[in-house]
């Protein structure tokens, strides 16, 4: 098994995540695209861990950390979306201008 096909699959997932981040209007769908990008990073970490095989399994440990941080991000992100929806009655990111000066 070679490394390059896995890296290309991860690059594809990351690029699709960037596309979803830029092209979507619904805030929940933007969060889904961010999950895709984090998942691509996890694939890269596991693939390089399979290549290096260090005695601490560093790649897998950091993949678990990233999964934890992604769970925290989803929790706080959906809470913010929920709050803005309650105040503005919309979940479209192009209608949020609360921080516009």
């Amino acid at each position: 098994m070679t490394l390059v096909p896995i890296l290309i699959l991860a690059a594809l997932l990351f690029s699709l995540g960037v596309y979803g981040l830029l092209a979507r209007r619904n805030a929940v769908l933007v969060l889904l695209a961010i999950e895709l990008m984090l998942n691509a990073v996890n694939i890269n970490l596991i693939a390089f861990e399979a290549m290096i095989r260090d005695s601490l399994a560093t790649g897998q440990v950091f993949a678990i950390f990233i999964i934890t941080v992604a769970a925290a991000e989803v929790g706080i992100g959906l809470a913010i979306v929920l709050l803005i929806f309650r105040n503005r009655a919309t979940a479209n990111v192009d209608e949020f201008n609360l921080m516009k000066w």
Partner: protein
Amino acid sequence: MSDWLLHPENWVFLVVGVAVAFSALRVVTSRNVVHAALYLVATLAGTAVLFLLLSAEFVAWVLVLVYIGAVIVLFLFGIMITRAPIGYDATLDNDRRGIAAVVSGALFLLMSWVSIDFFGSTALEDIGVPTSTELLGESILGRFVLPFEIVSFVLLAALIGGITVARKDATPLEAEERV
């Protein structure tokens, strides 16, 4: 190329990779919010199979439990609470789809080129020998115990913050009644 196809694990990777790529594409192009979330489940399940193939068993099951078990349920809750139109909706994308496609396509080509250039002939050895959970546990609670504690704190703070942000504030009248 014919040499690459001789190994059975490459066939598994090919099938799983095509499935993951297709469902990831549907996540960002689907016109139905709930379908997009369910395609993310398919993407994550394929990724878990890929992790099993790369002998990262524990991470694969963590992915299944945390993501497919918890995060997707949270997403479906979020979709239903924000009353996103359940069903076909043509207004989910904004007008700058073309620019987004060009940017992400260029990013994909750049990353693929760099990967091929740097790791063109790197082979993965001893695939199929699972990493022992014992090793992972000793690593997390030994060398990486400080990052582990920090991540735990971040998760706790984020969840408490999420509750604080999302809970409904009492109106002044209700607050008066409660006293």
